[in-house]
Protein backbone atom coordinates (compact mmCIF):
# COMPACT_ATOMS: atom_id res chain seq x y z
CA UNK A 1 0.00 0.00 0.00
CA UNK A 2 1.54 3.26 -1.05
CA UNK A 3 1.32 6.51 0.87
CA UNK A 4 -1.66 8.73 0.19
CA UNK A 5 -1.56 12.48 0.03
CA UNK A 6 -4.34 13.98 2.20
CA UNK A 7 -6.87 16.24 0.52
CA UNK A 8 -8.57 18.79 2.77
CA UNK A 9 -11.76 20.60 1.78
CA UNK A 10 -12.19 24.24 2.78
CA UNK A 11 -15.51 25.50 1.48
CA UNK A 12 -15.46 25.02 -2.26
CA UNK A 13 -11.73 24.65 -2.38
CA UNK A 14 -9.63 21.52 -2.03
CA UNK A 15 -6.29 21.96 -0.32
CA UNK A 16 -3.63 19.41 -1.22
CA UNK A 17 -0.49 19.71 0.88
CA UNK A 18 2.21 17.40 -0.38
CA UNK A 19 4.40 16.50 2.59
CA UNK A 20 5.99 13.28 1.36
CA UNK A 21 8.39 12.50 -1.42
CA UNK A 22 6.27 11.74 -4.42
CA UNK A 23 6.80 8.37 -5.97
CA UNK A 24 5.23 7.67 -9.34
CA UNK A 25 2.57 5.51 -7.70
CA UNK A 26 1.68 8.10 -5.03
CA UNK A 27 1.42 10.68 -7.77
CA UNK A 28 -0.98 8.63 -9.85
CA UNK A 29 -3.07 7.82 -6.74
CA UNK A 30 -3.23 11.54 -5.91
CA UNK A 31 -4.38 12.35 -9.42
CA UNK A 32 -7.13 9.75 -9.16
CA UNK A 33 -8.23 10.76 -5.63
CA UNK A 34 -8.28 14.43 -6.48
CA UNK A 35 -10.46 14.11 -9.56
CA UNK A 36 -12.89 11.93 -7.61
CA UNK A 37 -13.01 14.45 -4.77
CA UNK A 38 -13.57 17.41 -7.11
CA UNK A 39 -16.63 15.69 -8.55
CA UNK A 40 -17.88 14.42 -5.18
CA UNK A 41 -17.51 17.75 -3.39
CA UNK A 42 -18.31 20.01 -6.30
CA UNK A 43 -15.05 21.91 -5.71
CA UNK A 44 -14.37 25.11 -7.64
CA UNK A 45 -10.69 25.45 -6.81
CA UNK A 46 -7.62 23.36 -6.00
CA UNK A 47 -4.63 24.63 -4.04
CA UNK A 48 -1.54 22.49 -4.43
CA UNK A 49 0.98 23.24 -1.70
CA UNK A 50 4.42 22.00 -2.75
CA UNK A 51 6.45 23.94 -0.17
CA UNK A 52 7.75 20.70 1.31
CA UNK A 53 9.00 19.38 -2.02
CA UNK A 54 12.75 19.69 -2.36
CA UNK A 55 12.94 17.97 -5.69
CA UNK A 56 10.57 18.47 -8.59
CA UNK A 57 11.54 16.40 -11.60
CA UNK A 58 10.01 16.39 -15.05
CA UNK A 59 7.52 13.71 -14.02
CA UNK A 60 6.16 15.69 -11.09
CA UNK A 61 6.13 18.86 -13.19
CA UNK A 62 4.05 17.04 -15.79
CA UNK A 63 1.81 15.60 -13.09
CA UNK A 64 1.09 19.10 -11.77
CA UNK A 65 0.21 20.18 -15.29
CA UNK A 66 -2.07 17.15 -15.69
CA UNK A 67 -3.82 17.76 -12.36
CA UNK A 68 -4.42 21.36 -13.41
CA UNK A 69 -5.77 20.18 -16.76
CA UNK A 70 -8.08 17.60 -15.21
CA UNK A 71 -9.33 20.10 -12.62
CA UNK A 72 -9.96 22.64 -15.34
CA UNK A 73 -12.14 20.18 -17.22
CA UNK A 74 -14.06 19.60 -13.98
CA UNK A 75 -14.43 23.39 -13.56
CA UNK A 76 -11.93 23.85 -10.74
CA UNK A 77 -8.99 26.27 -10.98
CA UNK A 78 -5.63 25.03 -9.73
CA UNK A 79 -3.10 27.25 -7.95
CA UNK A 80 0.36 25.92 -7.11
CA UNK A 81 1.69 27.38 -3.89
CA UNK A 82 5.01 27.72 -2.12
CA UNK A 83 7.50 26.50 -4.66
CA UNK A 84 10.99 26.76 -3.20
CA UNK A 85 13.52 29.09 -4.87
CA UNK A 86 15.88 26.19 -5.56
CA UNK A 87 13.10 24.23 -7.23
CA UNK A 88 12.06 27.24 -9.31
CA UNK A 89 15.65 27.78 -10.45
CA UNK A 90 16.02 24.13 -11.42
CA UNK A 91 12.78 24.12 -13.39
CA UNK A 92 13.76 27.37 -15.13
CA UNK A 93 17.21 26.01 -15.98
CA UNK A 94 15.70 22.80 -17.34
CA UNK A 95 13.11 24.78 -19.25
CA UNK A 96 10.31 22.75 -17.70
CA UNK A 97 6.93 24.37 -17.35
CA UNK A 98 3.95 23.47 -15.24
CA UNK A 99 1.70 23.75 -18.25
CA UNK A 100 0.21 27.15 -17.57
CA UNK A 101 -0.79 26.57 -13.95
CA UNK A 102 -1.39 29.61 -11.75
CA UNK A 103 1.16 30.07 -9.00
CA UNK A 104 1.19 31.98 -5.71
CA UNK A 105 3.72 32.62 -2.98
CA UNK A 106 1.56 31.30 -0.15
CA UNK A 107 -1.92 29.88 0.39
CA UNK A 108 -3.25 33.28 1.53
CA UNK A 109 -2.45 34.70 -1.88
CA UNK A 110 -3.84 31.57 -3.56
CA UNK A 111 -7.17 32.01 -1.76
CA UNK A 112 -7.16 35.65 -2.85
CA UNK A 113 -6.58 34.65 -6.48
CA UNK A 114 -9.38 32.10 -6.38
CA UNK A 115 -11.68 34.60 -4.69
CA UNK A 116 -10.94 37.20 -7.36
CA UNK A 117 -12.00 34.59 -9.90
CA UNK A 118 -15.29 34.14 -8.06
CA UNK A 119 -14.28 30.88 -6.43
CA UNK A 120 -14.64 31.66 -2.78
CA UNK A 121 -13.68 29.35 0.07
CA UNK A 122 -17.09 29.79 1.58
CA UNK A 123 -20.12 28.26 -0.05
CA UNK A 124 -22.35 31.28 0.47
CA UNK A 125 -21.41 34.12 -1.80
CA UNK A 126 -20.57 36.59 0.98
CA UNK A 127 -17.34 37.74 -0.66
CA UNK A 128 -17.73 41.26 0.67
CA UNK A 129 -17.04 40.19 4.22
CA UNK A 130 -13.61 38.87 3.26
CA UNK A 131 -10.56 40.99 3.87
CA UNK A 132 -9.73 43.33 1.03
CA UNK A 133 -5.99 42.61 1.05
CA UNK A 134 -6.09 40.32 -1.91
CA UNK A 135 -8.81 42.12 -3.83
CA UNK A 136 -6.44 43.43 -6.46
CA UNK A 137 -4.27 40.36 -6.46
CA UNK A 138 -3.14 39.39 -9.89
CA UNK A 139 -3.40 35.94 -11.21
CA UNK A 140 -0.48 34.96 -13.36
CA UNK A 141 0.40 31.81 -15.11
CA UNK A 142 3.56 29.92 -14.41
CA UNK A 143 3.87 28.26 -17.74
CA UNK A 144 3.94 31.07 -20.27
CA UNK A 145 7.39 32.00 -21.50
Amino acid sequence: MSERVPIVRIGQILLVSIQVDLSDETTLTLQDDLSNRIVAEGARGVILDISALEIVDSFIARMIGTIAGVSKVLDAETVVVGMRPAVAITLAELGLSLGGVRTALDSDKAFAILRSMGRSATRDDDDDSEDSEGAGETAHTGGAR
Partner: protein
Amino acid sequence: MATEQATNRIVEVLERDREAIGDRWFRAVTTSTRGKMVPAEVRRELIPVLDALLNGAREGELDAGLPAFDEARALLGEYSRMRARQGFTPSETAVAVFALRDAVLTHIGTDAAIADLPAFSRFIDGLGLHTFETFAASRESVILNQTEQLLELSTPVVKLWDGILAVPLVGTLDSARTQVVMEALLETLVATNSAHAIIDITGVPAVDTQVAQHLLKTIFAARLMGAQCIISGVRPQIAQTIVSLGIDFGDIATKATVADALRVAFNSAGLEVRKTTEKRS
Protein backbone atom coordinates in the same frame (compact mmCIF):
# COMPACT_ATOMS: atom_id res chain seq x y z
CA MET B 1 82.14 39.42 19.08
CA ALA B 2 82.24 39.58 15.33
CA THR B 3 78.65 40.66 14.87
CA GLU B 4 78.97 43.39 17.47
CA GLN B 5 82.09 44.69 15.79
CA ALA B 6 80.24 44.60 12.50
CA THR B 7 77.36 46.55 14.01
CA ASN B 8 79.68 49.11 15.47
CA ARG B 9 81.41 49.53 12.16
CA ILE B 10 78.15 49.94 10.28
CA VAL B 11 76.86 52.48 12.80
CA GLU B 12 80.16 54.31 12.57
CA VAL B 13 80.01 54.44 8.80
CA LEU B 14 76.34 55.41 8.81
CA GLU B 15 76.90 58.26 11.24
CA ARG B 16 79.98 59.53 9.46
CA ASP B 17 78.57 59.41 5.93
CA ARG B 18 74.88 59.73 6.67
CA GLU B 19 74.33 62.48 4.11
CA ALA B 20 76.35 60.83 1.35
CA ILE B 21 74.83 57.36 1.92
CA GLY B 22 71.37 58.90 2.02
CA ASP B 23 71.95 60.75 -1.26
CA ARG B 24 73.21 57.63 -2.98
CA TRP B 25 70.31 55.59 -1.65
CA PHE B 26 67.65 58.13 -2.62
CA ARG B 27 69.13 58.47 -6.07
CA ALA B 28 69.13 54.69 -6.62
CA VAL B 29 65.51 54.44 -5.45
CA THR B 30 64.41 57.36 -7.62
CA THR B 31 66.05 55.76 -10.66
CA SER B 32 64.38 52.43 -9.93
CA THR B 33 60.89 53.97 -9.90
CA ARG B 34 61.51 55.15 -13.48
CA GLY B 35 59.95 58.56 -13.13
CA LYS B 36 56.91 57.51 -11.14
CA MET B 37 58.24 59.49 -8.18
CA VAL B 38 60.21 62.73 -7.92
CA PRO B 39 63.48 62.82 -5.89
CA ALA B 40 62.00 65.11 -3.22
CA GLU B 41 59.19 62.67 -2.63
CA VAL B 42 61.57 59.73 -2.24
CA ARG B 43 63.75 61.74 0.12
CA ARG B 44 60.79 62.76 2.28
CA GLU B 45 59.69 59.17 2.64
CA LEU B 46 63.06 57.55 3.20
CA ILE B 47 64.81 59.99 5.56
CA PRO B 48 62.70 58.83 8.55
CA VAL B 49 63.50 55.23 7.60
CA LEU B 50 67.23 55.91 7.56
CA ASP B 51 67.02 57.67 10.93
CA ALA B 52 65.01 54.84 12.43
CA LEU B 53 67.52 52.28 11.14
CA LEU B 54 70.40 54.22 12.61
CA ASN B 55 68.63 54.50 15.97
CA GLY B 56 67.97 50.78 15.93
CA ALA B 57 71.57 49.94 15.01
CA ARG B 58 72.86 52.03 17.93
CA GLU B 59 71.22 49.51 20.28
CA GLY B 60 74.05 47.19 19.40
CA GLU B 61 72.84 44.32 17.28
CA LEU B 62 71.83 44.03 13.64
CA ASP B 63 68.74 41.86 13.46
CA ALA B 64 65.68 43.01 11.58
CA GLY B 65 63.42 41.11 13.98
CA LEU B 66 64.57 42.91 17.15
CA PRO B 67 62.30 45.38 18.98
CA ALA B 68 65.00 48.01 18.38
CA PHE B 69 63.96 48.05 14.73
CA ASP B 70 60.20 48.21 15.37
CA GLU B 71 60.01 51.80 14.18
CA ALA B 72 62.07 51.10 11.07
CA ARG B 73 59.90 48.10 10.25
CA ALA B 74 56.72 50.08 10.75
CA LEU B 75 57.99 52.83 8.45
CA LEU B 76 59.05 50.34 5.78
CA GLY B 77 55.70 48.59 6.11
CA GLU B 78 53.90 51.87 5.54
CA TYR B 79 56.20 52.56 2.58
CA SER B 80 55.41 49.25 0.89
CA ARG B 81 51.68 49.58 1.62
CA MET B 82 51.74 52.92 -0.20
CA ARG B 83 53.67 51.37 -3.11
CA ALA B 84 51.19 48.48 -3.34
CA ARG B 85 48.25 50.86 -3.42
CA GLN B 86 49.90 53.07 -6.05
CA GLY B 87 50.39 50.05 -8.28
CA PHE B 88 54.18 49.69 -8.10
CA THR B 89 55.64 46.30 -8.97
CA PRO B 90 57.07 44.11 -6.19
CA SER B 91 60.65 44.59 -7.38
CA GLU B 92 60.27 48.35 -7.61
CA THR B 93 59.25 48.24 -3.98
CA ALA B 94 61.88 45.80 -2.73
CA VAL B 95 64.70 47.61 -4.52
CA ALA B 96 64.24 50.49 -2.11
CA VAL B 97 65.61 48.31 0.67
CA PHE B 98 68.31 46.53 -1.30
CA ALA B 99 69.64 49.79 -2.69
CA LEU B 100 70.57 50.73 0.87
CA ARG B 101 73.03 47.84 1.00
CA ASP B 102 74.82 49.05 -2.09
CA ALA B 103 74.91 52.58 -0.77
CA VAL B 104 76.40 51.51 2.58
CA LEU B 105 78.86 49.03 1.07
CA THR B 106 80.27 51.70 -1.21
CA HIS B 107 81.00 53.84 1.80
CA ILE B 108 82.45 51.10 3.99
CA GLY B 109 85.11 50.92 1.34
CA THR B 110 88.06 48.62 1.25
CA ASP B 111 89.00 48.82 4.92
CA ALA B 112 85.94 46.75 5.97
CA ALA B 113 86.63 43.39 7.48
CA ILE B 114 85.14 40.63 5.36
CA ALA B 115 83.49 39.25 8.49
CA ASP B 116 81.35 42.37 8.87
CA LEU B 117 79.54 41.91 5.62
CA PRO B 118 77.45 38.73 6.02
CA ALA B 119 75.77 40.05 9.18
CA PHE B 120 74.87 43.31 7.49
CA SER B 121 73.70 41.49 4.40
CA ARG B 122 71.43 39.26 6.48
CA PHE B 123 70.04 42.33 8.19
CA ILE B 124 69.14 43.98 4.87
CA ASP B 125 67.65 40.71 3.62
CA GLY B 126 65.45 40.58 6.72
CA LEU B 127 64.21 44.10 6.07
CA GLY B 128 63.66 43.26 2.41
CA LEU B 129 61.56 40.22 3.27
CA HIS B 130 59.50 42.28 5.67
CA THR B 131 58.88 44.88 2.98
CA PHE B 132 57.89 42.19 0.56
CA GLU B 133 55.48 40.54 2.96
CA THR B 134 53.76 43.80 3.75
CA PHE B 135 53.53 44.54 0.04
CA ALA B 136 51.90 41.19 -0.71
CA ALA B 137 49.53 41.50 2.25
CA SER B 138 48.32 44.94 1.18
CA ARG B 139 47.86 43.76 -2.39
CA GLU B 140 45.77 40.88 -1.12
CA SER B 141 43.61 43.08 1.06
CA VAL B 142 43.01 45.40 -1.90
CA ILE B 143 41.90 42.44 -4.02
CA LEU B 144 39.71 41.07 -1.23
CA ASN B 145 38.00 44.44 -0.82
CA GLN B 146 37.36 44.71 -4.53
CA THR B 147 35.90 41.20 -4.71
CA GLU B 148 33.54 41.94 -1.84
CA GLN B 149 32.47 45.22 -3.36
CA LEU B 150 31.85 43.54 -6.69
CA LEU B 151 29.63 40.90 -5.12
CA GLU B 152 27.69 43.50 -3.19
CA LEU B 153 27.33 45.51 -6.37
CA SER B 154 25.96 42.61 -8.28
CA THR B 155 23.15 41.50 -6.00
CA PRO B 156 21.19 44.26 -4.36
CA VAL B 157 17.52 43.42 -3.99
CA VAL B 158 15.68 46.44 -2.65
CA LYS B 159 12.17 46.75 -1.34
CA LEU B 160 10.25 49.58 -2.98
CA TRP B 161 6.94 48.99 -1.26
CA ASP B 162 5.15 46.32 0.71
CA GLY B 163 5.11 43.43 -1.72
CA ILE B 164 7.16 45.17 -4.41
CA LEU B 165 10.87 44.46 -4.87
CA ALA B 166 13.38 45.97 -7.27
CA VAL B 167 16.60 44.51 -8.64
CA PRO B 168 18.83 47.17 -10.22
CA LEU B 169 21.20 45.24 -12.46
CA VAL B 170 24.57 46.87 -13.12
CA GLY B 171 27.13 45.40 -15.48
CA THR B 172 27.15 42.57 -17.94
CA LEU B 173 24.84 39.69 -17.15
CA ASP B 174 26.65 36.37 -17.53
CA SER B 175 25.37 33.02 -16.35
CA ALA B 176 27.31 33.11 -13.07
CA ARG B 177 25.88 36.48 -12.15
CA THR B 178 22.40 35.53 -13.29
CA GLN B 179 22.56 32.62 -10.88
CA VAL B 180 23.51 34.92 -7.98
CA VAL B 181 20.89 37.52 -8.89
CA MET B 182 18.22 34.88 -9.41
CA GLU B 183 18.90 33.26 -6.05
CA ALA B 184 18.95 36.60 -4.24
CA LEU B 185 15.70 37.68 -5.88
CA LEU B 186 13.82 34.44 -5.23
CA GLU B 187 15.01 34.22 -1.63
CA THR B 188 13.90 37.80 -1.01
CA LEU B 189 10.54 37.16 -2.69
CA VAL B 190 9.90 34.42 -0.17
CA ALA B 191 11.36 36.32 2.80
CA THR B 192 9.33 39.48 2.16
CA ASN B 193 6.30 37.70 0.73
CA SER B 194 6.37 39.97 -2.32
CA ALA B 195 4.26 39.25 -5.38
CA HIS B 196 5.93 41.84 -7.62
CA ALA B 197 9.51 42.35 -8.73
CA ILE B 198 10.92 45.07 -10.96
CA ILE B 199 14.11 44.12 -12.80
CA ASP B 200 15.88 47.30 -13.83
CA ILE B 201 18.36 46.90 -16.66
CA THR B 202 19.43 50.55 -16.94
CA GLY B 203 22.94 49.54 -15.90
CA VAL B 204 23.24 46.62 -18.30
CA PRO B 205 25.44 47.86 -21.18
CA ALA B 206 24.07 45.55 -23.86
CA VAL B 207 21.28 43.04 -24.22
CA ASP B 208 21.99 40.17 -26.57
CA THR B 209 20.21 36.85 -26.91
CA GLN B 210 22.32 35.41 -24.10
CA VAL B 211 21.41 38.17 -21.63
CA ALA B 212 17.75 38.01 -22.68
CA GLN B 213 17.78 34.27 -22.09
CA HIS B 214 19.13 34.83 -18.58
CA LEU B 215 16.50 37.47 -17.87
CA LEU B 216 13.72 35.22 -19.11
CA LYS B 217 14.97 32.37 -16.94
CA THR B 218 14.91 34.57 -13.84
CA ILE B 219 11.42 35.84 -14.62
CA PHE B 220 10.22 32.32 -15.38
CA ALA B 221 11.53 31.06 -12.02
CA ALA B 222 9.86 33.97 -10.21
CA ARG B 223 6.58 33.19 -11.96
CA LEU B 224 6.78 29.57 -10.91
CA MET B 225 6.89 30.81 -7.34
CA GLY B 226 3.91 33.07 -7.90
CA ALA B 227 5.52 36.45 -8.40
CA GLN B 228 5.15 38.80 -11.33
CA CYS B 229 8.20 40.46 -12.88
CA ILE B 230 8.41 43.72 -14.79
CA ILE B 231 11.47 44.72 -16.79
CA SER B 232 12.34 48.39 -16.59
CA GLY B 233 15.11 50.66 -17.82
CA VAL B 234 14.94 49.62 -21.47
CA ARG B 235 16.88 52.29 -23.34
CA PRO B 236 15.96 53.19 -26.93
CA GLN B 237 19.08 51.54 -28.37
CA ILE B 238 18.47 48.39 -26.34
CA ALA B 239 14.87 48.28 -27.53
CA GLN B 240 16.13 48.44 -31.12
CA THR B 241 18.66 45.68 -30.48
CA ILE B 242 16.01 43.49 -28.87
CA VAL B 243 13.70 43.85 -31.84
CA SER B 244 16.41 43.36 -34.46
CA LEU B 245 17.64 40.23 -32.68
CA GLY B 246 14.09 38.92 -32.64
CA ILE B 247 14.01 38.46 -28.87
CA ASP B 248 10.48 37.86 -27.66
CA PHE B 249 9.65 38.86 -24.11
CA GLY B 250 6.18 37.39 -24.54
CA ASP B 251 3.63 38.74 -22.07
CA ILE B 252 6.28 40.16 -19.73
CA ALA B 253 5.74 43.85 -19.14
CA THR B 254 8.66 46.02 -20.25
CA LYS B 255 8.84 49.66 -19.26
CA ALA B 256 11.24 52.50 -20.00
CA THR B 257 11.68 53.68 -16.43
CA VAL B 258 11.39 52.31 -12.91
CA ALA B 259 8.62 54.84 -12.28
CA ASP B 260 6.52 53.34 -15.06
CA ALA B 261 7.19 49.84 -13.76
CA LEU B 262 6.24 50.89 -10.24
CA ARG B 263 2.99 52.28 -11.59
CA VAL B 264 2.22 48.91 -13.18
CA ALA B 265 3.07 47.10 -9.95
CA PHE B 266 0.89 49.47 -7.90
CA ASN B 267 -1.90 48.97 -10.36
CA SER B 268 -1.87 45.19 -10.20
CA ALA B 269 -1.44 45.22 -6.42
CA GLY B 270 -4.55 47.36 -6.20
CA LEU B 271 -2.71 50.38 -4.83
CA GLU B 272 -3.20 53.95 -5.88
CA VAL B 273 -1.03 57.02 -5.48
CA ARG B 274 -2.96 60.25 -5.26
CA LYS B 275 -2.00 63.85 -4.86
CA THR B 276 -3.26 65.18 -1.57
CA THR B 277 -5.36 68.31 -1.88
CA GLU B 278 -3.06 71.24 -1.34
CA LYS B 279 -3.50 72.80 2.05
CA ARG B 280 -2.95 76.51 2.33
CA SER B 281 -3.62 78.01 5.71
